[in-house]
């Protein structure tokens, strides 16, 4: 009896304390449950041992974002809970989704490939969900293959290619030698590059597919010099998504020309050389937490959790329709440490964001490059603007 009244008194005092500290947010805590779903990856063959394989790309970014959301939540009475599901290589993501995520979560950070993402997005259970895609770069997912319950946090290939093209146009590297690898991803990037070349009035004067070996000794000594004996060009643009030969091109081409694309000067949402606009704080905070550099998927997952946190804080709700409406509204502006407010394109769910152009040890430029103008926002000079988009969202 005594105990009970003591407990009551304590909880009363606690409530009193909370309400004096935060009079505006004295209500009960609002819980927001978020699932993180990814699948274990096979360790890819690597060109060198310089870059160790990173196992938990994405997850660490989500964790940092949740921590930031909860710091805000301490003041606003919101609790963000992240539950992680990493499916084994031989596991079935649909099973995990249906069994562990469906009916339990409305917000899911998805770190999977394009095919897997759309498989999940089309499941009946995903109807009343919002999926945050932190991995795919596919242009099709922002066009014909778009889904109205998916938001994309990383720049797609067209945005990257446009960023590179803007820079090349500025440098007047108008004549491109396009070198394409053999993977489907390489062909997709090549398509995006061709679209950008056309868009910005550049010329692809040579185009070749890499047909030589991936053996470093043979490739570097003879193959590249022979392979690159083509008509004169300003810049070699390479599409080698998996890094199978692209790193060997620099310093070995027949003519002395810069390398740009997936190797050399690359286009990325985030890069370890990036320090401006408060990015240094982000880099430091991430490294303190994860013990490694922030990768793109980490950045995407960080932005996903921060976007959700921002929407919850502003709408004072965890309801899907309100959150989604806020995220797609003009009021939504997210800081991404890249010098411009980030927002979602309300025609394809793609995050509107600057693209960094980075050399291995220095940040070269940030696109949109100055001088590329747009009536609404310069960020829409990258990728598919509203008029170009083939995305037609079917109402859920």
């Amino acid at each position, binding site marked *: 009896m005594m105990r009970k009244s003591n407990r009551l008194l304590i909880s009363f005092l606690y409530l009193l304390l909370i309400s004096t500290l935060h009079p505006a947010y004295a209500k009960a805590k609002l819980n927001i449950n978020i699932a993180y779903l990814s699948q274990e990856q096979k360790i890819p063959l690597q060109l060198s041992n310089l870059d160790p394989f990173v196992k938990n790309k994405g997850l660490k970014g989500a964790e940092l974002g949740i921590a930031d959301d909860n710091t*805000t939540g301490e*003041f606003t009475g919101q609790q963000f809970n992240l539950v992680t599901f990493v499916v084994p290589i031989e596991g079935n993501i649909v099973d995990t989704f249906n069994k562990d995520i469906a009916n339990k979560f409305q917000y899911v950070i998805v770190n999977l490939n394009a095919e897997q993402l759309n498989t999940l997005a089309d499941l009946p259970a995903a109807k009343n969900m919002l999926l945050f895609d932190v991995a795919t770069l596919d242009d099709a997912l922002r066009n014909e293959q778009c889904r109205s319950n998916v938001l994309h946090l990383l720049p797609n290939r067209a945005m990257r290619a446009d960023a590179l093209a803007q820079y090349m146009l500025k440098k007047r590297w108008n004549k491109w030698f396009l070198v394409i690898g053999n993977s489907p991803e390489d062909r997709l990037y090549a398509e995006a590059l061709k679209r950008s070349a056309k868009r910005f009035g550049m010329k692809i004067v040579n185009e070749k597919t890499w047909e030589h070996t991936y053996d470093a000794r043979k490739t570097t000594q003879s193959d590249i010099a022979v392979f690159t004996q083509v008509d004169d060009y300003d810049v070699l643009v390479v599409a080698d998504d998996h890094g199978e030969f692209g790193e060997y091109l620099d310093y070995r081409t027949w003519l002395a020309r810069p390398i740009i694309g997936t190797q050399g000067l690359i286009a990325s949402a985030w890069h370890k050389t990036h320090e401006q606009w408060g990015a240094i704080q982000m880099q430091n905070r991430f490294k303190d937490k994860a013990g490694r550099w922030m990768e793109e998927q980490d950045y995407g997952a960080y932005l996903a959790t921060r976007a959700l946190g*921002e929407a919850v804080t502003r709408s004072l709700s965890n309801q899907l329709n309100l959150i989604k409406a806020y995220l797609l509204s003009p009021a939504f*502006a997210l*800081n991404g440490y890249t010098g411009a407010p980030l927002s979602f394109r309300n025609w394809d769910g793609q995050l509107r964001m600057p693209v960094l152009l980075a050399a291995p040890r220095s940040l070269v430029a940030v696109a949109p490059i100055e001088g590329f103008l747009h009536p609404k926002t310069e960020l829409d000079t990258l990728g598919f603007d509203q008029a170009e988009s083939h995305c037609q969202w079917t109402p859920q």
Partner: protein
Amino acid sequence: MIKKTSLSLAIGLLCLSNVSAESVFVTLENDNALAVVDPIAGKLIKTIPIGQRPRGIAISPDYKLLYIATSDDNTIKIIDAVTFKELGQLPSGKDPETFALNPAGNRIYVSNEDNSMVTVIDVAKKKAIKQIKVGVEPEGITVSPDNRWLVSASETTNMLHWIDTKTNTIIENTLVDPRPRAVSFTADSQQLWVSSEMAGSVMVLDANNQQLIKTIKFEISGITADKIQPVGVVIDKERHRAYVALGPANRVAVINAQTLEVEKILLVGQRVWNLAFSPDQKRLYTTNGSSNDMSIIDLDSQTVTKSIGVGTYPWGVVVKP
């Protein structure tokens, strides 16, 4: 009669000489130095090495001491405002950027961005006396002229923390537009102005109840909204006008501080950052981070009269009469 005239002439001359003695101090983030500018002559007088990556700067109420956050030295240096000798250092915590000096000049409040803290420093004892937990990435910080409030703005949490200066505890939290940067009280301590970089807005709050009075947005023809990123905000003593540095829009907005309407937009240097009035409030000085200069705005005519090259990445600015 003659005596009187000559006396007033002498006073006039004295005032004039006082005016020309005015010095503007600008921290140069990339030069690791402090620029000393004579704004009347429109000249850079000298550049003094000051420490690694100097950013935030304040001057003591008696104008004898400068406090400069040298971020990469992880300290706030105390510098003699005449000889520029280093007199001591304050335990600011890691990577200090912005800080606030209270009106009495005996407390410094530092934003520690990396660990979401505000450090309270006893200036005389050169000791940190308290750390206050705030939101993620605290940046803008200020003390009200009546010393009632310390306000800290968290850039990532998008929140203002209203801290009682007597108890050093948070009394109230206010959500504001995305990425708040600078916070400034009006001279009567009745209003707090806060700039939000990502929303491109300035919010004016009633300091008595922390409620929003108005959100001011900016429109500049030929410049998209993304580029309008407000940073520094100052309000004149009479609360006639406020001035807002618009960052990469390369402009300063002139706001009628009574009606809260934008009156004029002035073109200054690139990535205009921080602002300071001359002691007589006849001029406004701006630091222009990307064009490595400062602009002088004549406030009577509301025109930019001069730009002076000061060094690379000019950041903070204070004025000594």
